[in-house]
């Protein structure tokens, strides 16, 4: 019986590169998948592309490809990634150039497009999940609109002999599901198998989060050699059951606990995980340790897909300005509160238009809400003032007022930092899958 070995090379755009290299070297992999496209990343990439038509793909693509291409080429490991972001064609072109520079030959690169639906959306009928209104009524400057493609076009790319598949927006688990469909010959309406393949993808897509990252709680949940956390791989059987593991010698831990946490990560109803290809059902999943760092995953299932694809729309929302300053010792909480009051008053006096204001004392109430304990025992706090504005100039005024507390504010304030940035927001809706036509372009070295 055939077993497929699929590894994770990245779980987010900024992820570490050397664990991917290690996995490519020692994982005996059939596939290495790089997931690099968070919800907002593609809108930011689209802005980059508007500024430079050759940009808009993952900024780390070049470094990643240089690091893993020679190894993957030698080991016959195929690469799948959404590093194409807002410009998969240029990502493919750049990868081609890198392969040439590295002296690699006989490489086929597939570029998947068709996720960009910006020009296809009818703003008068496209309804937003978040607000229930149409995109037209929402009335914000739209930057990008991308549909979450399924596994289909990646399967086609693999069937065309692709060694590397570069996409824009596809559902994250679909990048892992596609090689399972292709290698095992699963039917696109075998909902149970598609559900299981999605489960494997869901568990792998965040990389180190299943090998001991986002997990350690010293003394309670200890993770060995965590600075050398290995990236995960799955050994998938033809029926879709899998073993989640990592390569020997790497740091971290793959346990029932890490797998259970990741199973529910960013999941709402576990019986109804909506994907382009299937409604995956994780409600009956069993997680069992079979050896150290080897966890068996069984019991995944699925139901017929909805026939609609989610579309993420990126838009220019607002600007956020922020400033922080520290106070310590006796009375630090009172001085911090005074500092925040002063900034609030100053913004009024100078007529800075703030749509929304948030004041925190970091160390007291910034993360978990109102603090009700004894403030006399607090050794130090950091006052944080942040506000939403409609212009960058107004956003910059927030930090300026915090900085001027050095000379004009409460006693003994120090360590000011400030920032002002444009906020790209995301709203979502659904589009009929029949309106989307993914396209495939093959490049060859």
């Amino acid at each position, binding site marked *: 019986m055939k077993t497929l070995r699929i590894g994770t090379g990245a779980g987010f755009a900024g992820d570490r590169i050397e664990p991917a290299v290690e996995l490519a070297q020692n994982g005996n992999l059939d596939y290495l998948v790089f997931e690099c496209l968070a919800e907002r990343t593609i809108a930011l990439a689209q802005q980059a592309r508007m500024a430079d038509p050759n940009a808009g793909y993952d900024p780390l693509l070049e470094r990643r490809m240089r690091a893993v291409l020679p190894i993957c080429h030698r080991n016959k490991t195929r690469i799948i990634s959404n590093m194409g972001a807002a410009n998969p064609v240029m990502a493919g072109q750049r990868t081609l150039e890198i392969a040439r520079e590295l002296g690699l030959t006989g490489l086929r690169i597939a570029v998947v497009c068709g996720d960009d639906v910006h020009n296809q959306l009818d703003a008068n009928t496209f309804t937003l999940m978040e607000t229930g209104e149409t995109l037209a009524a929402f009335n914000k400057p739209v930057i990008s609109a991308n549909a979450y493609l399924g596994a289909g076009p990646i399967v086609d790319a693999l069937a065309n002999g692709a060694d590397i598949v570069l996409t824009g927006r596809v559902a994250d688990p679909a990048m892992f599901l596609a090689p399972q469909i292709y290698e095992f010959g699963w039917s696109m309406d075998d909902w149970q198998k598609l559900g299981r393949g999605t489960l494997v993808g869901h568990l792998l897509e965040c990389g180190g989060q299943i090998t001991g990252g986002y997990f350690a709680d010293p003394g309670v949940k200890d993770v060995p050699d965590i600075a050398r956390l290995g990236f995960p791989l799955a050994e998938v059987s033809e029926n879709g059951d899998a073993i989640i593991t990592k390569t020997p010698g790497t740091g971290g831990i793959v346990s029932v606990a890490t797998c259970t946490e990741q199973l529910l990560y960013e999941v709402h109803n576990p019986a109804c995980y909506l994907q382009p290809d299937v409604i995956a059902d994780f409600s009956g999943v069993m997680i069992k340790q079979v050896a150290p760092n080897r966890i068996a995953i069984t019991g995944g299932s699925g139901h017929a897909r909805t026939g609609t694809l989610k579309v993420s729309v990126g838009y220019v*929302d607002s600007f956020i300005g922020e400033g922080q300053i520290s106070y310590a010792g006796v009375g630090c909480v009172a001085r911090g509160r005074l500092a925040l009051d002063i900034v609030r008053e100053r913004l009024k006096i100078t007529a800075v238009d703030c749509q929304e204001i948030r004041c925190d004392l970091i160390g007291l109430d910034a993360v978990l809400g109102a603090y009700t304990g004894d403030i006399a025992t607090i050794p130090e706090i950091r006052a944080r003032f942040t506000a939403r504005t409609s212009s960058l100039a107004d956003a910059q005024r927030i930090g300026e007022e915090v900085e001027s507390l050095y000379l004009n504010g409460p006693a003994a304030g120090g360590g000011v930092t400030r920032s002002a940035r444009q906020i790209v927001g995301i709203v979502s809706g659904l589009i009929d899958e029949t309106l989307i036509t993914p396209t495939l372009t093959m490049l060859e070295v």
Partner: protein
Amino acid sequence: MRLHQIAHCRTGDKGNISNISVIAYDNRDFAMLADLLTPAYVKQCLVGIANGAVERYELPQLGALNFVLHNALGGGVTRSLALDAHGKCLASAMLEIEMPGR
């Protein structure tokens, strides 16, 4: 007794919705977790965080509950003014919850 003694948690985010899993270290504690951690009790304990509806899903074979907290992320990850816009720290708030009568 705090939840931290018998369970571990992980937070995930989607838009303005946070989900927090609660997983018993020992499956034999699951019945107690399911009994005590009602959506209403969790909403009450996470006042100021769980600003909307709280839903709960059960996976008894894994000793796990999954809480879905609506309107919990300051309007949504991409535009929230919060320091921890993703609500990554919220699992720790859940672990602080006192188990009534235990």
